[in-house]
Each structure stands twice: as C-alpha cells, then as structure tokens.
C-alpha cells in the first residue's frame, strides 16, 4: 500500500487542509500501519512527566555529602601512598650512597666539593662563550634572517598553545 503523502503528514505533524484531512481519515481506515503511526503520535503528544519519589533533594544532599567524604578520603590515601612511594624510592636510590658516606665522610665531602667547583667553572665558561657568540653573530645575520627566526619561534609557540587548548577541550565529559 502506498503510504505517501499520509506518512509524511503524520511524521511531520503537518498542517493539512480539510480536504486532505478527509483523505487522511479514509486512508487511516484502510491502512493499519498509518493508523498505528497516528495512534502512537497521539499517545506521544499526550505523554506525561514521571515524578521521582518524595525526598529526592534530601537523598541528593546525602549522596553529595557521601561523595565528598569519599573524594576527600581518596585524595588523602593518594597523597599518603604517593609520599610513601616517594620515600621508598628515595631510600632505594640513596641507600647505597648513604651507606658509603657514613663509612667515609671525608672522601665524599671532597667529591662533592670537586663537583661544585666543576659546575661553577663550567657555568662561567658557558656565560663567557655565550657573550662572545652574541657579540659576533648579529654582525653576520641579516635582519631578514632574524625576522624568519623569530616568526618560526612564534609560530611553533602558537601551534603548541592551540594543541594544548584543543586537548583540554576534548577532555570535557560528554554533554557538559
């Protein structure tokens, strides 16, 4: 049986002329499918709202309080486990050195001082080398090259910011 255009009228809840209404009524009497479509449409249009059992808000408050306590407890446990794990890891890594330091502190102190001196002199050397490069390089590079260099840095920075923003957006739960 051809349901057109009656099916469309019923699905779209279209405004129809009295003549079309007459045709529709005739079709509905003959077509069980369109009749079911009309009936379900009528039932849907008179649909009623379901109401929750009384005390919904109070139950929500209780649930929220429970969830907050659980969250606080979870955070506390997380922090405690993290600290404990960190301490164990630290002891595992530092343990052997600590043992040898306790056995001969003088050797260790001289090694540490030697390292500090080495770091200090390296830093001074790097600063001096940097100053020399900075005073020489600008004379060799044309202004256009500087422009390209800074634009590239700015572009990379922008790309990075956009990527972070997009990842942050994607992280939101659905429907929120």
């Amino acid at each position, binding site marked *: 049986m051809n349901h057109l255009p009656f099916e469309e009228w019923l699905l779209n809840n279209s405004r129809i002329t009295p003549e079309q209404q007459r045709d529709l009524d005739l079709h509905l009497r003959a077509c069980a499918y369109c*009749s079911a479509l009309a009936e379900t449409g009528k039932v849907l249009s008179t649909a009623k709202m379901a109401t929750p059992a009384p005390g919904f808000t109070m139950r*929500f408050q209780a649930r929220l309080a429970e969830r907050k306590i659980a969250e606080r407890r979870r955070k506390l446990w997380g922090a405690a486990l993290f600290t404990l794990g960190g301490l164990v890891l630290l002891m595992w890594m530092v343990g052997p050195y600590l043992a040898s330091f306790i056995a001969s502190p003088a050797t260790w102190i001289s090694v540490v001082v030697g390292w500090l001196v080495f770091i200090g002199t390296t830093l001074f050397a790097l600063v001096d080398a940097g100053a020399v490069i900075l005073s020489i390089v600008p004379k060799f590079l044309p202004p256009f090259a500087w422009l390209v260099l800074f634009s590239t840095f700015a572009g990379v920075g922008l790309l990075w910011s956009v990527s972070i923003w997009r990842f942050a957006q994607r992280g939101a739960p659905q*429907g929120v």
Partner: protein
Amino acid sequence: MTDENAWVLQAQQGNDDAFTQLVEAYQKPVYNLCYRMLGEPETAEDAAQETFLRAYQNLHRYDSSRSFGTWILSIAAHYCIDRLRKKKFSVFSMDAEDEDGTPFEVADPASPDPEAESVKKEDRNRLHLLLKDLDATDRAAVIMRYWYDYSEVEIAQSLKLTVSAVKSRLHRSRKALAGMWQEEKSRAHPERRSRESLAF
C-alpha cells in the same frame, strides 16, 4: 537576572544551597528523562542522582549562554545512553510504577470517563514499554521531542548530532514504534486483524 541564573552563579561560587535549589527545580524533568530512557524507577532515580552529581562536579564548565535545563538534560541523556550501551540490554519490569507513581493499569474511578481514562493510561504504558526496543540515542531524541517539546536544533545540540541526523532518527523511531504498536495490537486482537485483512 532570573532566579535560575542567580542560583547557577552562586553554585559556581561554591554555594551548595543554591545548587540544591537547582536540584529542586530540575528533579522532575531529569528524573522523567532517566525513567523514559531506562524504564525502571530505581535505576531512573540512581541515574538522576548521578546526573546532578556530574553537573555539580562540572558546573565550572557550564556556559551561561545556554539554558541550564538543556545542559542538565544533555548530561542526563548522555549518562543514560552510556549506561544502556554498557548494559547492552535493559530489563523493563511490568511491575514498575507509572508516571504518577501509581501501579500500572489503575484507572481513576472518579474520572468523568474512567474507561477512556483507563484506555489512555494503558496506551501510555504500552508506549513506554515499546520505547525500550529503540536504539539508545533514538530513544533520547524521541523523549526530548515529545516529553520536552525540544526543537530538532535543540536535540541536535544536546545529543551532539546534526539536525538532519536528528530528523532521520526521529522518523525512523516513529516508524519503528508504529510497527511495534501494530504488531502488539494484532497479537492482542488477532480476530479483528484477520477481519481487517479480509476487508481490503
């Protein structure tokens, strides 16, 4: 500024009493959506409570240019869809309560036409049960369209679909419901159906 906007703003600043006002105002629409989606009062209650908890936790993400009602119903719909997909099947109990909280098939004897009222109620219950056979997203679209009078654009925004997808989902669902309705009727009244067939 409306009361609702003021409550949202206060709730965003950490005022739990203001959020409670929002729960009070939206408990019925949220519960109804969950009930129509999941089919059972107990699961609907749980889903509605979870919806409000999610809204509470994500209140800082709420965009005040949108309606709060649309936002919270969107959370409820997505939560129910996820729940149905995880469960893969939903058990609808015939012992469930209807929309007024009264048991199924009880007509009001004080009504001017109790028989007609009883038929209407029966039809609504039957349709409620048929909803379970629709795909979860289709079901959400039908509920938003017919229980909340949402436009196709609003449904598309809430369910993160295109308007044309919403249109086709609504049509498909209406056709599926009509088909199931017709089958149910012919099962319930086989003699009437056979007489109808002879008439054509």
